[in-house]
């Protein structure tokens, strides 16, 4: 069987047989749509199917990428349906959604794909009419003959269009003529998300599928020494108990029986080297490293000399804890391993890496492995790892049946790849007028995202790239790895370092007797886009204008993922309890595809960052995570939601990212507002009410 027919037959089987498989937005096509290119298929019924090669975790890719395709295709927005294709080289070498890249990497390519399909449809119409293609244009799912006003629908042209060759060098639309891009557009996935029909990874069901959970060592890096499955196997519904590399899998005919079976399992663990690690010891190891110079992340001028000659010196130590991702949909994966092929259904941020992991474990060629993309119930970076995919493949391989592996919430929280805990020491010098002349930061945290010459770029980003015009800057770094798994968490290094840097800058403003916005304006004089965003936020927030008694404002800026945001938070503190009333966010993310999508993502990023700032903290005791569920790792609730106002800076610049844009700035904006209203400086997260009472 060649690859194409493998894909077609498995896709057809999935659509026809399996309950809970991808439900399209509109009812299934009456006829098989005809492929014009990898992204655009047109049915003879005039429906247009757009293939979304990225994945949807809430960030709006299904809608925004459809807008890019439809803008040039000139199709009828009401006639489109979307599908997640499998992994295929025609969608690029590395399918996945990390780093807020979807729009940036598709901005040009998907408009071109839409234009190419349109030109093929035009070519088919011109041939049918026997006229020059220049006499034809596409509009509203049809091709129009501009001399006769005759029309041919896309559906009637699809078959002939598929045989056309698209002309080279198609000019893309002048943005002034955009009819979709730049207009607030409702999400295409909403209707299926209000009636239970949207199919997430955890909703996949296959014939003869069994349900698995895995007992893993509670200490990171620990291994199974021995186990006794007698009692587990006696639990009604339990089918089998098998050892896999990450632990002991209990497989049953439903999820609950599998969990009950795991409860009855006896496992002796060899805890390995970090069975005695705890949070105070980790913090001490960070603090101890501060005495020595580290790997240099940025060096400008001579910070040491400038500091010794400064009129005033400011020093501070900041720290943040490990954080879990805790997406609402706990990790899960369905795998069906056969002798000659492997199929995987997953809510994943990394389809290509999931496929590679399945191929590695099964020993099959990549071509014999397929990964079907499901809606993700949140990702936040956690689903970029393929560990849970590999586990499901291992269990299906070991049992010989299709398996759905589910992580319980406790598994999710205690076996995560965490946002690293981080510790930093800041020193700055002010001149006689109170303006900063020197800035030195030393950071200690576990390296993540690669390390080179002792430097983890992600460990220092957000400090090493501060945009402020300070003549002498030194940022250095110590890789201190306590052995807790760490990885990407929404906004990565900026999630901690922007809190550090923007809070410390606020300290400099206070020490120099400057207004925090005025100080930033002066230091951003040569950064026009940031300055414009700052001025817009200050204007909309009424910076400097009176507030009700007991309220304060704080400002913070971030420039990550190719976008700039400035947030101004309005906060009150009542008997130690922080209330965030209002957040004004100005965002310059370049050319905007869907303003409504931008607004949703700014809100979302703020809630995510605020949850962490107010409540988030993973602590370690005896090599184990102490939190297991939302009782001890709480997140923001509806009654704590501030009023968020989003203001977009109009821009024709290349698009930036948006999914991670507003997460870094909210913690420092809130903490700077707390300082404004209480005079207390928050240097450690999460906020503890004890510090403010």
């Amino acid at each position, binding site marked *: 069987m060649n690859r194409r027919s493998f894909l077609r037959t498995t896709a057809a089987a999935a659509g026809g047989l399996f*309950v*809970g498989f991808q439900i399209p937005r509109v009812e299934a096509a009456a006829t098989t749509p005809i492929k014009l290119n990898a992204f655009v298929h047109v049915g003879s019924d005039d429906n247009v199917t757009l293939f979304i090669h990225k994945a*949807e*975790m*809430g*960030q*709006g890719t299904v809608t925004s990428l459809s807008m890019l395709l439809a803008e040039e295709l000139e199709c009828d927005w009401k006639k489109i349906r979307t599908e997640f294709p499998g992994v295929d080289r025609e969608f690029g070498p590395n399918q996945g959604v990390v780093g807020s890249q979807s729009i940036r990497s598709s901005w040009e390519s998907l408009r071109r794909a839409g234009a190419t399909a349109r030109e093929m449809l035009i070519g088919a119409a011109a041939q049918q009419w026997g006229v020059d293609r220049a006499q034809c244009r596409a509009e509203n799912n049809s091709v129009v003959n501009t001399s006769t006003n005759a029309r041919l629908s896309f559906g009637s042209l699809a078959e002939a269009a598929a045989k056309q060759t698209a002309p080279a060098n198609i000019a893309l639309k002048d943005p002034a003529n955009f009819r979709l891009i730049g207009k607030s557009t409702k*999400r295409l*996935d*909403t*209707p*299926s*998300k*209000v*009636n*239970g*029909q*949207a*199919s*997430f990874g*955890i*909703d996949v*069901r296959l014939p003869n599928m069994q*349900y698995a959970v895995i007992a893993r060592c509670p200490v990171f890096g620990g291994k199974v020494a021995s186990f006794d499955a007698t009692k587990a196997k006696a639990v*009604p*519904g339990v089918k089998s108990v098998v050892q896999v590399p990450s632990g002991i899998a209990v497989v049953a*005919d*439903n*999820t*609950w*029986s599998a969990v009950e079976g795991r409860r009855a399992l006896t496992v002796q663990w060899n805890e390995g080297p970090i069975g005695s690690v705890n949070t105070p010891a980790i913090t001490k190891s960070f603090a101890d490293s501060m005495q020595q110079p580290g790997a240099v992340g940025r060096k400008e001028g001579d910070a040491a000399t400038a500091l010794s000659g400064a009129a005033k010196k400011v020093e501070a130590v900041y720290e943040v804890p490990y954080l879990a991702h805790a*997406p*609402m*949909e706990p990790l899960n994966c369905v795998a069906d391993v056969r002798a000659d092929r492997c199929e995987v259904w997953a809510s994943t941020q990394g389809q290509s890496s999931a496929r590679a992991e399945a191929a590695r474990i099964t020993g099959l060629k990549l071509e014999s492995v397929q990964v079907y993309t499901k*809606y993700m*119930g*949140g*990702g*936040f970076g956690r689903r970029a790892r393929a560990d849970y995919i590999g586990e499901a493949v291992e269990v299906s391989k070991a049992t010989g049946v299709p398996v759905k592996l*589910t992580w*319980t*919430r406790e598994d999710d929280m205690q076996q995560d790849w965490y946002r690293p805990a981080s510790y930093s020491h800041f020193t700055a010098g002010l001149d006689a007028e109170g303006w900063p002349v020197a800035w030195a930061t030393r950071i200690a945290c576990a390296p993540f995202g690669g390390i080179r010459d002792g430097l983890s770029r992600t460990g220092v980003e957000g400090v090493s790239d501060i945009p402020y015009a300070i003549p002498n800057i030194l940022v250095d770094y110590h890789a201190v790895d306590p052995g807790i798994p760490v990885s990407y968490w929404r906004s990565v290094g900026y999630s901690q370092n922007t809190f550090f840097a923007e809070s410390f800058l606020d300290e400099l403003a206070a020490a120099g007797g400057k207004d925090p916005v005025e100080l930033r304006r002066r230091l951003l004089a040569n950064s026009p886009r940031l300055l414009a965003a700052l001025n817009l936020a200050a204007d909309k927030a009424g910076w400097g204008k009176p507030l009700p008694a007991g309220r304060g404002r704080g400002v913070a800026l971030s420039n990550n993922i190719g976008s700039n945001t400035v947030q101004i938070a309005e906060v009150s503190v009542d008997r130690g309890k922080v209330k965030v009333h209002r957040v004004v966010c100005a965002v310059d993310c370049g050319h905007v595809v869907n303003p*409504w999508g931008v607004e*949703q993502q700014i*809100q*979302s*990023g*703020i*809630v*995510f960052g605020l*949850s962490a700032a107010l409540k988030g903290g993973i602590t370690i005791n005896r090599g184990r995570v102490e939190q297991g*569920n*939302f*009782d001890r790792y709480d*997140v923001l*609730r*509806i*009654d704590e*939601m501030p009023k*968020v106002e989003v203001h977009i800076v109009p821009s024709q610049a290349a698009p930036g990212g948006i999914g991670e844009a507003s997460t870094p700035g909210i913690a420092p904006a809130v903490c700077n507002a707390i300082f404004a209203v209480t005079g207390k400086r928050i240097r450690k997260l999460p906020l503890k009410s004890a510090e403010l009472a």
Partner: protein
Amino acid sequence: MAAVKFMLNGKAQSVDTAPAMPLLWVLRDTLGMTGTKFGCGMALCGACTVHLNGQPVRACITPISTVAGKTVTTIEGLSPDSSHPVQLAWVEADVPQCGYCQSGQIMTAAALLAKKAQPTDADIDEAMRGNICRCGTYDGIRQAIHRAAAMQRQGGAK
């Protein structure tokens, strides 16, 4: 194991499972109704909210034995065609992002509106604070509940 009989979305249903098995897993794994979501297993997040005799309950901690003889409504049975005012308002306000928590949010909101036709912001806080949304759609949820209440008052759909 004795069969447990109950009404599910208007139809008589009988299941033969361990009496302690939570309703959540009966719905999802035994009956294949996956609209009700697993989030925490401890009634801490609200993703599994269904109506039991009209009251919002967390299906993840509701043993199937306690459902016998009662009426269960899930997101699939809230309306036959997404026409419940809460669903209509959710679409109008374009509330969901990842969407995973939304079944539970909608079921909790529908139960609130059945009890209070014109909920205040404080009523919404109280009813909805048990439902977590990690995407932060809280503002949309609040707006949509007010909108659904207005629709109900105007005698809109249903």
